[in-house]
């Protein structure tokens, strides 16, 4: 016993354990491998900075969406409505800015506020009426999709204020449009909150053991409420970036981000900090999927393959991560 105790204490920072270290960076390694394969196949068209800067910018909304998902997920609630919130936010921008000529600054504030309202409505039903989050957010998804179609007459609204377009894709840093840096900033902020603040600990405990958290003086309902509102605001921000990238408001395509973003949230939980939903992992996962999809598309592979890639990568990664842990129960779910 004394001998095992001492080895355990020396072996502490558990991350130093080689197997665990590999688990942490496995997805990054696979990502680099994927880039190498596509690079070998298409050295000119794939392996140039321009291509990557497009990937980084055009998947920034998906990255923000994945972040919007993991906040309530860590607190134990599913938010399926983030895709519809993204669409709602960009549709609002189109309608208010283009049709009603409101100044773009005000419109952006309103779009973010709409996201907060969606979060509050979700929270109201989930927390105060105790309806399962999956049901509520599935409902609000359909609800918002309908409202967006009514608002926009089901048409794409072009001609959004150029200031927004410039702020999102007009400027570049190291050749990468600003859009990417907004997502990156959100990752840094969330990463900080998750890992370096008591709020992050509270979020985690609320998700893993509600009763335990409550008996330790944590205002469980307030934490869940906050997480759902944060999710709504982040999804609305994703909508703003999406409107900026497109330069228009599209009432339909936003929902297409939902599945990849969820896939990325779970895929990300197998990397960087395996076993936890974590912002860094989620964003690595988004860009891993983005690289795969872009590469396959450039190879001229038919569209259905990208869906197979999305789903296959998710299932494979989660399975491998589970296998490395043996029969130890999964932390997630």
């Amino acid at each position, binding site marked *: 016993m004394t001998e095992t105790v001492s080895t355990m204490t020396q072996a*502490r920072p558990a991350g130093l354990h080689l197997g665990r270290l590999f688990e942490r960076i496995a997805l990054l390694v696979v990502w680099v491998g994927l880039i190498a394969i596509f690079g070998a196949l298409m050295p000119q068209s794939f392996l140039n900075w321009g291509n990557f800067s497009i990937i980084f910018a055009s998947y920034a909304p998906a990255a923000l969406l994945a972040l919007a998902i993991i906040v309530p997920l860590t607190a134990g609630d599913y938010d399926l409505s983030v895709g519809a919130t993204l669409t709602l936010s960009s549709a609002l921008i189109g309608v208010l800015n283009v049709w009603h000529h409101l100044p773009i600054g005000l419109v952006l504030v309103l779009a973010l506020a709409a996201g907060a309202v969606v979060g509050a409505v979700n929270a109201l039903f989930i927390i105060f009426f105790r309806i399962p989050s999956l049901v509520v957010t599935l409902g609000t998804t359909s609800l918002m999709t309908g409202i967006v179609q009514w608002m926009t007459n089901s048409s794409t609204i072009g001609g959004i204020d150029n200031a927004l377009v410039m702020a999102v894709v007009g400027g570049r840093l190291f050749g990468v449009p600003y859009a990417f840096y907004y997502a990156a900033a959100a990752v840094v902020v969330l990463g900080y909150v998750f890992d370096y603040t008591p709020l992050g600990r509270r979020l*985690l405990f609320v998700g893993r053991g509600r009763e335990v958290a409550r*008996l330790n003086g944590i205002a469980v309902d307030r934490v869940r409420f906050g997480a759902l509102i944060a999710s709504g605001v982040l999804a609305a921000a994703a909508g703003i970036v999406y409107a900026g990238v497109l330069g228009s408001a599209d009432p339909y395509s936003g929902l297409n981000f939902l599945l990849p973003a969820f896939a990325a949230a779970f895929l990300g939980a197998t990397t960087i900090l395996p076993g936890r939903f974590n912002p860094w992992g989620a964003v690595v996962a988004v860009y891993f999927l983005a690289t795969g999809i872009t590469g396959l598309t450039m190879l001229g592979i038919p569209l259905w393959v990208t869906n197979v890639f999305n789903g296959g990568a998710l299932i494979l990664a989660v399975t491998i991560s589970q296998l490395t842990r043996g029969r130890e129960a999964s932390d997630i779910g």
Partner: protein
Amino acid sequence: MSDVPSAIGRVAEPGAPRALPVLDVADIAKTFGGAKALRGVSFSVAPGEVHGLLGKNGSGKSTLVKILAGFHAPDHGGRLAFNGEMVDLPLKPGDFRRLGMSFVHQNLGLVPSLTVLENLRFAHLTTARSGYIDWRAERAAAREALGRFGLSIDTAERVDRLSPVERALLAIVRAFEEIRVACAATGKPGLVLLDEPTPFLPREGVEKLFGLIRSIAATGSSVIFISHDIDEVMTITDRITVLRDGALAGALETAKATHEEVVEMIVGRRIARLGTPGHQAAVAKPAFLRVSGVAGGALAATDLVVGKGEILGVTGLIGSGYEELPYLIFGARPCRAGALDFVDGAHVPLAAMSPKRALDLGLALLPGDRQGASGVDSLPIVDNMFLPDVDRFFRFGLLNRRAMVREAFALGTRYEVRPNDPAMKLSALSGGNAQKVLIARWMNRNPRLLLLDEPTQGVDVGTRVQIFAALRAAAAAGMSVLCASSDAEQLAEICDRVLIFARGRVCAEITGPDLTKDGIAEACYASIDLTGRTAPAAPALAS
């Protein structure tokens, strides 16, 4: 040396029974990461035998049980024979059912979100051949099984709405039902494994359990019984196997062993028997907290006073309401009425009480339901330890992880958590060690009033002594303690005063020389007559 038939051909220990053993294991080892939980354990269980499996926290008892359940795969090289039939290791899922084993795991192994019926008839519902479920017959079978144990739980109730006592009873009933069915099917003796089934059971529950154990042993089946309560073990078992640090420390025949010998074999050294330290006539302590008219759940309006530096015990029979008291005072469960008056003049109506408020007032609560309400299994020890005071480690906008781990390590050393690795998940600790982590969490905060519900559940004899000493030292320094427990020995050991509850009211107070294990147990039984009932009443009480 008697030549004992042993399917795996090893020399059996002298004094081992002559019949073909029901269970015969040899050289079972298990390594978790780099840590050895079991290092080659061999023993056998004869038909009709009640076999005690003892050992300190973390000695590998539960690990052995989980290997037999096919939950853990043992290291290569172990052998297992059941009723003379060699069985390949690791066991496949369902093997245990085919062989005729059933379990009450330390965490009970119930599905909280399913109903009593679904949990009880789990095996039958999921494996029935007919492909059709006759719910009426299932309900009748479930009711009959519960009835045999004198339980009247609604079969449609969700398990997470049951009290810890009812949950423990349900798991026990299920194990005995499964073994009855299995024996009828195979015609061979079966084996029931009970991993610490008693911490939540009040005395009459333990007696019922012992009745069931005896009746199952009389039919030729065997029972493995794990407990830290040496008196229980001495009462019910025929033989005892003791593990220490994952290895066999020895075997005893219960009838020929004394309490002291068993304790010595477990701990590896001689310790004084957990005797009552001769209570003097009660010295009245100045009041710290006056609780007036607290009512909620099964508890009718009750007044009581907790002295400063006093350790006050509350106990009684199931359903008598004493177990609600810590939760009501802490604001963890809804209160119908009542108020708290602190010595410093603070007046708090209990309707306005919440766990947050209670913490701010310097109260602390260690709930009895370790996995559901006390700690989060899937998170590291360090986070569990400092859950209520993470804010303390937040400086200059950063959570000081290193300071947290350092302090957790120091606390772990003080409370003998093994292995003492703060980064490890709570689930990787043995049951007793996890409990130590959670006790350390609250003791470290130095609360003014510590509320405890079954604080030493699953904690081994040696550590119990240490926890008691820590409690006494803290009380001497001015901390008040309110301890709800059905364990009379524990109450006699630590308390200055014990209140006995019946029908939601205080019916007796014990202090001074009467404060002994037997004195408390007697008073509990006398409370039945006092209130003129023979069975625990349904918690329907007018306030």
